[in-house]
């Protein structure tokens, strides 16, 4: 899959030159499975425990849902996964996208509360230039939990 627009993922604090994986999807929630599988495969390589992998999968759903709120039928969702020794960083962008509707605002708020509990850091930026970006980071908990 390819995109005609340059994608500048927000992977705060991560070396841009580091190894990474990119995924480009139509905005269809039944395809979030691909985003979850990619994240859990990377987390598995980093020796995340079962609990952390499962939290990450839930978090990926929330990130995708948040970024996709208000997306159009022809929008695309792009994910970039980067990682270091014990942390996975996921950046997400959906475009084109319109201004947040009331339902989108509710979805964003719900997802933010859920993400608070699931990952170390996360953020969803306001729509800018027809795009919405979001990101999360999750580190391997101590004791492999």
């Amino acid at each position: 899959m390819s995109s005609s627009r340059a994608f500048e993922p927000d992977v705060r604090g991560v070396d841009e030159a580091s190894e990474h994986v990119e995924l480009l999807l139509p905005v269809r929630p039944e395809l979030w499975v691909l985003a979850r599988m990619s994240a859990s495969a990377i987390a598995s390589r980093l020796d995340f425990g079962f609990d952390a992998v499962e939290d990450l999968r839930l978090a990926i759903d929330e990130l995708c849902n948040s970024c996709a709120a208000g997306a159009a039928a022809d929008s695309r969702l792009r994910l970039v996964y980067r990682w270091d020794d014990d942390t996975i960083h996921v950046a997400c962008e959906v475009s084109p996208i319109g201004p947040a509707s009331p339902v989108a605002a509710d979805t964003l708020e719900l997802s933010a509360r859920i993400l608070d509990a699931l990952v170390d850091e996360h953020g969803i930026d306001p729509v800018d230039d027809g795009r919405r970006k979001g990101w999360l980071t999750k580190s391997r908990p101590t004791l492999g939990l």
Partner: protein
Amino acid sequence: MTTTPTTRELLDQKLREYARTHDRGLRDEIIAAHLELVEHLARRFVRRSEAYDDLVQAGSIGLIKAVDGFDPDLGFEFAAYASKTIVGELKRHFRDKGWSVRAPRRVQELYLGLGQVVDELSQRLGRSPTVKELAAETGASEEDVLEALEAGHAYRSASLDTPGPEGEPLTSRLGHVDGAYEKVDERDLLLPHIEKLPQRERLILHLRFVEDLTQSEIAARIGISQMHVSRLLARSLAKLHDACAAEA
């Protein structure tokens, strides 16, 4: 489902009264009286390797929609009307989880055995096992373990656009909901939807997002497998998103 003329008349009376008053007690009575219909229809889909309980749950959502949407003045029989919405919901259930339904049999079998392995390893290691450890213990590849975990999650593909389910018939309420949900509760956004979740799902949400317990700790606390906790969490969150979208 068979009804005698007397019970049919009684049902018609209740449906008319519910349409007029929207009384919650009446609604629950009508739903309870038709759970047999949901079970009957759910059994027709069991051959597709889907857990029966999950099908009943999905079908129940269709029943609730039928109760809320039924207009007695149009002259249709409720059971026929409800059957259509229940089957519609069962089909939607399969459509939304299409990827998992097509998981190969070996992956489905691995998933079925994995719950016990997760619990045994957690106990032995004193922590949540890694995917590598699960693969080593089961003799499967890491990829198969990851695929099996994914195959077990039925409710993650909630659509952003389609109207969402309304949850289960009301049961008893969680005594106290606060913390992470507080801000949202103040806006009356989530609480009504949380209250519609089955009691166990509400408890799991509370333990995970308010008391900040891990999935393993929740599993130990309420006496079910870690994987079951994970599946219920995913399902509850999908329902909440659906409910938010439907409300708007």
